[in-house]
């Protein structure tokens, strides 16, 4: 029977190995969330515009991204970006671009559902007041839609944080990698995998508890 010894896990190990990976995972999550929401909103507006020149490319993009495993998307970008720009690119930067592009497809579906959840009368009323399409979206529809979407955005961000561990495929230094390297250097791989699982669990579990609280607060009572 294997006996567990966690005494090697100290502040020094944390700052030397884990912190760097943790910061990268968090940074990747935040950048991909913001970028994903911006590009996702653009994709959603394209899909709802009703103009086939906008609808079809956006739909094709979203469906393609959603039918490929994330690991393959990460590998694709890592292969294609250097081919297109003609010079090698680091795993960190490649991962960041990949996650923005990938999450845009998922956030666009959330935004689309959010916009459709705003009662149609709201948009009609804005039109009747003489607002342009842009004003209508900017002042009437999107503010309500985004409020409805906040909990779903946060849930997607938690999933995204878990998914960042897949940058393992191209060797980027994220939270999981930090634990793995620490485990190798200290000769304690089993303990560090347990600690990695524990760390991810604590973060994701507490975040999902917070999301559940926020869900009640932001609900628009009609």
């Amino acid at each position, binding site marked *: 029977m294997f006996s567990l010894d966690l005494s090697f896990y100290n502040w020094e190990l944390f700052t030397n190995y884990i912190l760097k990976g943790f910061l990268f995972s968090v940074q990747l999550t935040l950048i991909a969330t913001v970028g994903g929401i911006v590009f996702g909103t653009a994709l959603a507006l394209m899909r709802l515009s009703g103009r086939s020149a906008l609808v079809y490319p956006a739909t094709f993009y979203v469906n393609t991204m959603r039918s490929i495993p994330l690991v393959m998307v990460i590998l694709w970008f890592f*292969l294609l970006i250097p081919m297109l720009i003609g010079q090698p690119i680091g795993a960190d930067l490649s991962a960041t671009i990949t996650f923005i592009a990938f999450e845009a497809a998922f956030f666009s579906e959330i935004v689309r559902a959010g916009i459709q959840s705003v009662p149609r009368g709201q948009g009609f009323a804005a039109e009747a007041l003489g607002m342009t399409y842009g004003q209508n979206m900017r002042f009437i529809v999107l503010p309500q839609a985004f409020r409805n979407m906040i909990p779903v955005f946060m849930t997607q961000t938690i999933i995204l944080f878990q998914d960042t561990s897949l940058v393992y495929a191209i060797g980027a230094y994220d939270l999981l990698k930090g634990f793995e390297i620490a485990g190798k250097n200290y000769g304690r791989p089993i303990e560090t*995998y347990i600690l990695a699982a524990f760390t991810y669990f604590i973060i994701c579990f507490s975040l999902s508890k917070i999301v559940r609280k926020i869900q009640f607060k932001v609900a628009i009572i009609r």
Partner: protein
Amino acid sequence: MSLDVGVFCKSTLDGEVVDHCFSALFGLGQNADPSYLDWLMKAWGWTLAVAGLSLIIAIILGAFMGTLRTLPVTNGMNRVLVRFSTMWVELFRNIPILVQVFLWYHVIPAFILPLKALPSYWLVSIALGFFTSARIAEQVRAGIQALPSGQQMAATALGLTTFQSYRYIILPMALRIVIPPLTSECMNLVKNSSVAFAVSVPELTLFAMQAQEETSRGVEIYLAVTFLYALSAFTVNRVMSLIERRTRIPGFITASSDAVLAH
């Protein structure tokens, strides 16, 4: 840049073109000199095997745990079961799948020694199955709670025990309701099976990485692999919609649209 499909007819041993490329498709791996096409097809087989085994584990455990979560808390036993299934879902939902795969591969066999004898294919499938079971459990719970509460009450009024009312009244309805969300979970499972590369199961993603390195024809290799993933997920989608149509009870549950592609 042009595509060179010929790479699939090259031998994996010396990089020379083999003369039985497409016949190789049908005599899987029987040739002394396997081509990349052989290897690709074998890798696809591994992907389907991992996805298939974990699907069985996930559906059985997911339906079971999802049902437990909805038990009426009328006695101590039920309370324990509800708490246990809730913990199950939270545990397997809040740890990234890749970390769970490493736990099953590196950590758990150190504590449960007989697991050391299992090949990594089994361990990955268990990891994927448990991970997905938490998601399926949530769908099943939602399906059960979507039923009108009158169903349960009527069952109780007829004198059915809790077990009987689940067996004959609630589950036959709820399991039909959850087929559409289950479809997208199954498609996710096919895609998630790609994490098996991390513990050296020779499936499509590992093939993509290794063949890309050996041949430097990354685009062709990745296109083929991506196509096979999409094809597998699409097939799952069609099979599930067939099951949905076959099990539908006319007049009871309104036809739901096909599950959206993935996630």
